[in-house]
């Protein structure tokens, strides 16, 4: 049980998907201008990543490997992720249309979010069993969400800072993300995988 916990902490903090492995940067920059959108996005991404890593594990182990079609893994992953994202989009549109409108283009963009595809492929490369891949998917999503929400709160405050005009907007956001990843380096080595 403890190594599941260590895996989770390792994925959330030590090799955080956004700040250490630099995956999923485009929604990270795009959605983080307001905290509500960031929170909405993080729920959607967590749902998608966990479900996608689960389904991709099932598809690989019970369909592709028995029929030794390993070379189809990437394509089937994309298929799985696209389905899950489409499904999420419908759910979000139904449940809260304001969130749907706030997220706008970034909801369907989760399909192309490299963190989502990344988690599926990493599951494969690290030969995670069924339960580990779910924990890994969930951990990656929680890491993504934690950093996204913190970053959105900072950007909301930065919006009114007296930043020199050439640096206003995305430039200062990039620099802030850089400093954040500097801080996350401190977790290096925390968990010996």
């Amino acid at each position: 049980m403890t190594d599941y916990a260590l895996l989770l902490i390792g994925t959330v903090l030590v090799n955080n998907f956004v700040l250490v492995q630099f995956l999923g940067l485009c929604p990270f920059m795009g959605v983080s201008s307001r905290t509500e959108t960031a929170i909405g996005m993080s729920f959607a991404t967590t749902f998608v990543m966990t479900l996608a890593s689960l389904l991709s594990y099932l598809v690989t182990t019970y369909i592709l490997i028995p029929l030794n079609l390993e070379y189809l893994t990437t394509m089937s992953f994309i298929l799985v992720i696209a389905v899950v994202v489409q499904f999420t989009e419908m759910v979000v549109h139904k449940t809260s249309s304001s969130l749907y409108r706030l997220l706008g283009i970034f909801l369907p963009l989760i399909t192309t979010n490299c963190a989502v595809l990344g988690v599926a492929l990493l599951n494969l490369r690290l030969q995670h069993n069924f339960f580990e891949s779910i924990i890994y998917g969930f951990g990656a999503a929680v890491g993504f969400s934690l950093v996204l929400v913190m970053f959105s709160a900072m950007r909301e405050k930065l919006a009114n800072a007296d930043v020199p005009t050439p640096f206003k907007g995305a430039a200062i956001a990039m620099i802030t993300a850089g400093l954040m990843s500097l801080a996350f380096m401190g977790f290096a080595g925390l968990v010996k995988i």
Partner: protein
Amino acid sequence: MNILLAILVLGVISALFGALLGYASIRFHVEGDPIAEQLDALLPQTQCGQCGYPGCKPYAEAVANGEAINKCAPGGEDTIKKIADLLGVDVQPLDDNHEQDDSSQSNLPKVAFIIEEDCIGCTKCIQACPVDAILGAAKQMHTILSDECTGCDLCVAPCPVDCIEMRPTPETIQNWQWDLNKIAVKQIG
């Protein structure tokens, strides 16, 4: 042989997921888009048509499906900011060919005023006023209800004897505003 198998497998998987999505789209069907009403609530309702649309509601619907958000001259900067917040897009400066309607000299809004000696009671302005803020009948004297008038100056053009002019509302104790530069507050940075 292997290729056929691959195509078959992918075909089965996508068919399966296709069915799932089909079912989901029926169950989660969403009608209408309430955004137009929210946008309309933000606009200043002067129905002045300077955005090129006959009134605020049509402009709201146009913005709902993609029209530029910076055409509302009377609303000025803060309406654009509100629309940008609502739609989650970034704020653009006011469209330049729609001249900035908030009277630059005094920051108090302008209101139409009829010079009563000239009015010949032709009711042209009454027909033109989008909010019925002009009192009067054919051949009778016309006058403008100053707190109903939205300052859209649609009535100035049709008047044949040019007796309507836009005047800023006077500054009284009630609408007087503390303004920052009266006290020489120098902001560092």
